């Protein structure tokens, strides 16, 4: 936790209310904790990946950073400024420097706005409409490799890859410092994923951009992230240097995720770690180490004691019986 961290998150908690009065009276759980005490730091000029499956809390975490979701506890320090508890008005200049890209490439673009209007919007919102917006739109389209004519198109006239590029252009419009991208390759064909990843890497090099990528696609993580964290039921189970983790994962869940991606080679003998398929509900969290109900290495202690984060190798880990030590 040094002072030149761009983003510093510590002990962050986010909950949602699920039941109403009737549920509370019936004694049922009314709150779920989607993010339970998450902490990490992101250095300037690097890319950090948040990896997890549905229900892990990664999207909630991303949205909380942007202020779309209030945090119940913890701290989010961005460029030295505490973000938790800021009003919408106070968040506005922050949002200019930390924009967000959403999962659905076409769905995150307002259907009745042309590409020109979509790319002009950041300027208008932040009071910069006196700039030559046409020139800015052209500049942005060129940066993401789209021809000028695309300014007149509407979202439904764009392919997934093209819409994604417009999303990227919109995110970098005001020279941000950190881009938060939720599943940047989701819904894209394999041949187009490479284009988007190459584009993001180029922008990182050219603009000194830092990135926080949320994804469940581990192959993508390897190609773009310097550091990564694996999330399960709202907690980080392992975080550290990407290459190190890929070479030797320490947490059983990380290992299972890595082995779960079927490789396109019919002859490869699959040493697959198959987990019992169902993730526990957030309304009924397992005791002790929350992964113990699905862990192939679980022992008696795991159901009782909550593991505390510790450094194992180069990773920060929460596990009683880590792998590859």
């Amino acid at each position, binding site marked *: 936790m040094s002072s030149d961290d761009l983003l510093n998150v510590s002990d962050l908690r986010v909950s949602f209310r699920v039941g109403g009065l009737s549920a509370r009276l019936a004694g049922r759980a009314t709150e779920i904790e989607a993010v339970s005490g998450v902490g990490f730091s992101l250095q300037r000029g690097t890319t950090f990946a948040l990896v997890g*499956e*549905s229900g892990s809390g990664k999207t909630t975490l991303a949205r909380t950073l942007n202020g779309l979701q209030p945090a119940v506890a913890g701290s989010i320090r961005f460029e030295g400024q505490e973000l938790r508890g800021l009003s919408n008005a106070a968040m506005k200049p922050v949002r200019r420097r930390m924009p967000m890209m959403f999962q659905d490439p076409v769905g995150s673009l307002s259907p009745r706005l042309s590409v020109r209007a979509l790319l002009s919007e950041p300027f208008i919102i932040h009071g910069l409409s006196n700039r030559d917006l046409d020139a800015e739109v052209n500049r942005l389209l060129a940066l993401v490799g789209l021809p000028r004519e695309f300014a007149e198109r509407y979202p439904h006239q764009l*392919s*997934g890859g093209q819409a994604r590029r417009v999303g990227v252009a919109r995110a970098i419009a005001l020279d941000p410092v950190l881009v938060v991208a939720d599943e940047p390759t989701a819904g894209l*064909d*394999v*041949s*187009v*994923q*490479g*284009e988007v*990843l*190459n584009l993001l*890497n180029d922008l990182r090099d050219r603009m000194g951009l830092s990135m926080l990528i949320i994804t*469940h*696609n*581990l*192959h*993508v993580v*390897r*190609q773009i992230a310097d550091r990564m964290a694996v999330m399960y039921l709202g907690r980080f189970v392992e975080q550290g240097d990407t*290459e190190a983790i890929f070479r030797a994962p320490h947490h059983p869940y990380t290992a*299972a*995720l890595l082995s*779960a*991606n*079927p*490789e*396109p*080679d*019919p*002859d490869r003998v*699959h040493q*697959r770690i*198959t*987990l019992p*398929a*169902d*993730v526990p509900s957030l309304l009924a969290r397992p005791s002790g180490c929350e992964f113990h109900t699905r862990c192939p290495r679980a022992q008696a202690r795991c159901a009782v004691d909550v593991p505390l984060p510790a450094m194992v190798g180069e990773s920060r880990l929460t596990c009683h019986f880590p792998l590859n030590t």
Partner: protein
Amino acid sequence: MTVLDVRNLSVAFHTGSGRLEALKQVSFSVPANRSVGVVGESGCGKSTLINAILGLLADNGEISSGEIIFEGDKDLARLDPTAMRALRGRRIATVFQDPMGALNPVLSVGRQMRDIQYRSGLSKRDKDARSVAMLRKVRIPDPESRLAQFPHEFSGGMKQRIAIAMALMMEPALLIADEPTTALDATLEVATIELLKDLQRDIGCSVLFISHHLGVIAELCDEMIVMYAGEVVESGTTREIFHDPRHPYTQKLLACDPARLSHRVARLPTIPGTLPDLRHRPSGCVFQPRCDRADAQCRADRPPNAVIGGSHIARCWYADISLAGVGA
């Protein structure tokens, strides 16, 4: 025996802006008890293919030529709607990407599974027993109590498994699976693929598996076809195609998959260009505008299917050029 034999199938749509050739002379077959994968990206015609097989083409679409021979004697392209409806759900079952396409949100799971068996003539108790057995097969825990529950009470992965159970309950000859695991997380996807493999062996049906996820096709399917812009550009066993792809599109597609990369690279491979406008197909080979090996012949004449060996064919003038063993 061949369960499905598609021969030279061409499908066209009449749109406001012209005639769109969505499928052009598509040919492949699905043998009994085998899995055939269909690989292709958006716009390759996979959905049109499924709709044509199931007789569900939109009003402005038509099968302009070709045959879809099912179980050796029925041509689905020419079957009347009543006969087609009798086949659907019984001899040919489908699983879609979104399980809610098969599940009615206002009916209990048990009720829906009973409804599927309406032609069986069994008593309600027997039907429920069969439903429970099927749910157990797809590894839904505590199946008896699940019959009374509604779809929204299940997670995404479980819903998909229920959809698979419903599809296979009537023991069809052919299961068409349209991207059934695309919306699922990796660990769920793996579990679902293993499940499909087991079920297929158990019930003895054939599977036509559509996906753009190469890894899943490699794992699940014995044979596969690669589609591009409405044509089959390469087909053969999965082993043949993954180890020795001959069509430039297949080669590029395999190279693009980040799962194939065992380390971080500076630039990820991509396929430059975009899909052609299917209202104005390119002359000659359909892939020629994006192919870096295209020459005058490729631009002038559509290549025939070149036989590479065994069942492996590729529609390319230069299909004899192999990349196998070249820094794969």
